[in-house]
């Protein structure tokens, strides 16, 4: 015992047959049971890795869809053909990707990999809620959103709400661009009582009214997301104000001044790409 050769970390070094398994492995009575554990853990890790990969790919595709949707110039109409042609294949890619992990997320595993898939689902929610608003000027309900996922995947309300938060940032970007281009607020035509700003304001007050203390999944990100949403809505509010005050004075290519107040730092936290 005393003369045992040790490697740097204090483990025994098996000099004579360094290629073969250490002797303790051959004699340990726990080898069979640990071999079983190994196969169980391997199965779990493989599944998790597949899901993580799909989540990343879904995120990337969803970002592309959102990016394309920011070129939409009208509200409450079907997506124009040129953009629709671009995003339709992306939507089917997402469906295909999600479909591949449906078997991995069945039964007891439905919630097991929640943390691994949540990123992709949230970004996808952001894309579909944004697209739905652009075409219908309505905020997609949870049930409608859940139907966007392939059968066998459950939408959690956390992913829906967090996706909805991020959508407000997209609505802000869309509204500002629209105002800069058309000199008016999207959704305000036809004597409509509400427009994108009132929708955003209402969305904000509804989100602010949620009591998320009881939700572990939400309470983590909620306040950060809410700050960002508030900043987005204020940007549109300021944009509308300056558009009305300065009106037709604006030169060609003018963009609404969104930083009316001495820019709160939160304003910079809106996700950009």
């Amino acid at each position: 015992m005393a003369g045992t050769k040790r490697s740097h970390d204090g483990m025994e070094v098996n000099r004579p047959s360094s290629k073969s398994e250490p002797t303790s492995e051959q004699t340990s009575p726990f080898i069979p049971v640990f071999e079983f554990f190994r196969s169980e853990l391997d199965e779990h890790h493989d599944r998790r890795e597949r899901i993580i990969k799909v989540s990343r790919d879904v995120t990337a595709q969803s970002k592309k869809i959102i990016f394309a949707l920011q070129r939409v110039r009208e509200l409450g109409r079907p997506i124009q053909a040129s953009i629709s042609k671009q995003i339709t294949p992306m939507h089917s890619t997402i469906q295909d990707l999600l479909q591949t992990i449906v078997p991995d997320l069945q039964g007891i595993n439905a919630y097991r990999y929640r943390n691994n898939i949540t990123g992709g689902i949230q970004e996808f929610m952001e894309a579909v809620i944004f697209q739905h608003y652009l075409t219908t000027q309505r905020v997609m309900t949870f049930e409608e959103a859940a139907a966007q996922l392939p059968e066998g995947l459950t939408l959690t309300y956390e992913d829906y709400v967090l996706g909805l938060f991020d959508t407000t940032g997209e609505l802000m970007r869309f509204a500002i661009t629209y105002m800069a281009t058309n000199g008016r607020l999207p959704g305000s035509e036809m004597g409509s009582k509400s427009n994108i700003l009132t929708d955003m304001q209402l969305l904000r007050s509804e989100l602010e009214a949620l009591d998320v203390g009881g939700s572990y999944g939400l309470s983590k990100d909620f306040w950060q997301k809410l700050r960002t949403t508030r900043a987005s809505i204020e940007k549109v509010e300021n944009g509308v104000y300056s558009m009305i005050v300065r009106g037709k004075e604006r030169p060609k290519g003018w963009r609404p001044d969104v930083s009316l107040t001495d820019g709160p730092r939160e304003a910079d936290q809106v996700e950009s790409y």
Partner: protein
Amino acid sequence: MTTPAPITTTTASSSPHVDPAIFSSLQTKIDEEQAIRDELRTHVDVLSKQGRLTQSILSRIHNTPTDQLEANVLTPCYDALSEQTKTVKELAESASKYPFYKWNSIWQRDIQTLISSMQLCDWLKSGNLLTLEEVGQRLNVPVNLKSEDAFHITVEDYLLALTSTIEELARLAPNAVTLGDYARPLQISKFIKDVHAGFQLLNLKNDILRRRADGVKYSVKKVEDVVYDLSLRGLIPKNNETG
């Protein structure tokens, strides 16, 4: 000069575009979760309290001579464990109504502590490692469920518990010597090395289990050092061969 007319706004709540029902039903879902969490918490709080008692009984192993272990530690420990088993039954009944992996973080820590106490207690009594199946049988709950969604003991729970058990035994090795039991470190050394060999078979990812399993080798070393000190001084009992 023509300026655009002010944007007509109405009270926000009248917008037809944002259905308030979306948010009231969200709030309902959140409140339901809170109620579930409270229900599970009550069981876990009891389990946690009982677990602290079990742990305090087991911590006496470090200053109880081996020949008094049975009466002073193991018997009261098994009593405490059987109390915990009752709580686990209640927890399992509650928890099985809900998705296991949605909630298991609430009880994971206390269940792992409990499993570790069981492993330690059993090893001290018999020198054997309690298997995952035996843990399930004693607690009267399933283990390693793969499709049925119900309360159970996971492989990870069992393995994480085992790393704690190993640490506790590594602590016992020098303390046993202090109490005059020179055979104990050899017995512990053999066991820890066997378990360590098992852990080396696992393909671990960069997670909690890896960090804890990495710690097992320090326990191996710690106990080996004790054995080395004893053998150097000829203090190892003759009828015991080294592991």
